[in-house]
């Protein structure tokens, strides 16, 4: 629990552009990314932003497509807030937070209700139109909570989907044409395909104090900032892929515009940093193999 004085100190720090840890408004804490951390998953990544630590693991399974979209795969998102991460997450306290963040991730990655403006090619996940497709489960786990969880989750999601290897399927038509064709999974990692994750956005969370926007808030700063927080999903080209306001205070259109501009400026840089770390690690692994 932070005291009133501490809260005011943090808010003033943001307003003056010099925060408690010496950062300016638009500085991120050091970002650390590690790929393929969960051996049981098809793709996974761990992301550290300052002291915040999250893990995202992606698993795929063959299942039936949704009735409305027979020739598309399905992507599910879930986020679990481990009580290890923060004392506030015990009991049922973190269930809503997890569901909120999962919904937010889904909207930023998949786009509108029809999943058509999304950043993933869902058609590539189709195996047999109308009867079989890949279901991709993106499971996030918050390990240590010190603010900017959604930012960290989105970065880890992008990295985990870059790391994702989907096994090859062999479809052999069965003897009886009425029957479903047989599907066999190829376990050889050499034949596995990856998914194009280059268009997946990262979330930049902004808050403001006295008109000065700031990114990457620590848990203390999140508790101190009276204004609303805005989650902006930005992809590598600077396009806005999602926007969500959080908090009980209203927001002025001008302030929102300023925040969007800052997010569009920072988002591509963040994407680039994530890409650089991903390619370095994937390259290292290939050489190792």
């Amino acid at each position: 629990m932070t005291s009133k004085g501490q809260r005011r100190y943090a808010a003033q720090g943001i307003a003056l552009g010099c925060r408690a840890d010496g950062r300016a408004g638009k500085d991120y804490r050091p970002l650390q990314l590690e790929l393929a951390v969960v051996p049981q998953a098809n793709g996974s990544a761990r992301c550290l932003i300052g002291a915040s630590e999250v893990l995202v693991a992606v698993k795929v399974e063959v299942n039936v497509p949704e009735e409305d979209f027979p020739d598309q795969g399905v992507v599910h998102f879930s986020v679990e807030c481990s009580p290890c991460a923060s004392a506030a997450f015990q009991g049922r306290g973190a269930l809503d937070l997890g569901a909120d963040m999962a919904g937010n991730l889904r909207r930023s990655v998949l786009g509108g209700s029809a999943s058509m403006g999304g950043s993933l090619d869902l058609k590539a996940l189709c195996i047999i139109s109308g009867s079989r497709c890949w279901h991709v489960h993106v499971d996030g786990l918050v390990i240590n909570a010190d603010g900017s969880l959604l930012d960290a989750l989105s970065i880890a999601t992008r990295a985990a989907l870059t790391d994702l290897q989907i096994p090859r399927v062999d479809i052999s038509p069965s003897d009886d044409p009425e029957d479903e064709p047989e599907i066999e999974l190829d376990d050889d990692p050499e034949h596995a395909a990856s998914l194009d994750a280059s268009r997946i956005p990262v979330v930049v969370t902004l808050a403001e104090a006295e008109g000065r926007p700031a990114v990457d808030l620590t848990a203390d700063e999140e508790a101190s900032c009276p204004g609303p927080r805005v989650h902006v999903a930005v992809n590598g080209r600077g396009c806005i892929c999602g926007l969500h306001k959080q908090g009980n205070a209203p927001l002025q259109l001008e302030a929102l515009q300023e925040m969007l501009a800052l997010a569009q400026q920072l988002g591509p840089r963040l994407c680039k940093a994530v890409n650089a770390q991903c390619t370095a690690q994937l390259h290292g692994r290939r050489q190792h193999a």
Partner: protein
Amino acid sequence: MQSVPFHAAERPLELLSNGTRLDGRSLEEFRRGIFLSTRSVSQASGSSYVEFDNTKVIVAIYGPREGGHSEGLYEQGRLQCDVSFAAFASRQRKQTGDRAKMSKQNAYEKELASQLCTALTPAVQLASFPKSVVDVCCVVLESGGSDLAVATCAAALALADAGIEMLDLVAACSVSRVGDQLLLDPTTDEAHREGGNLMLAMMPTANLVTSIMLAGEHTSAQATEGYRLSSYLLQPLA
């Protein structure tokens, strides 16, 4: 009793012809059958019923009531929102047997409830009912597109009807991006083919945004255009 198989009508392939939409609207026009009324639930402290053509929403407000012990003590009042869909609200009947589908539906309803809460709370003077809770119960009778926006308008109306002190009314609307066109107040068929959407809720007199939600890839210009469109057009709605 034998059940009658139901085949939903095919979704239309084309949404626009000569710049008009299937229901005869232009791109930047609200649905024409807008109907607003209050006092529709006699037991509630305040209520409203709102129709936007095929989207029909009923909202009841209960409270302010004493906040329970289990929910902890809050200096300010709180809104507690609940959104549920009637079993017959959508093309497919709400599943009651299938557990996986039910939990998905529940998750969706919960998400809408939390978004409704975000959209309404900034407009409500929470300090006027300390340590108490106001329940906002929203039932979507028919889901015909832009459900959340319609529910937000209805809930703001019902809150006003209940005599809850507010800074301003809240008006909300959705915009869908289909191809390169921006369609205001989309129907379900239009939302089905959208590449992105934007939901904006604001206090029109104060010109303050209470909630904004955007999904799908937008360039900056499209986003700006989207909310210019929605904010401009929200004025007459309020």
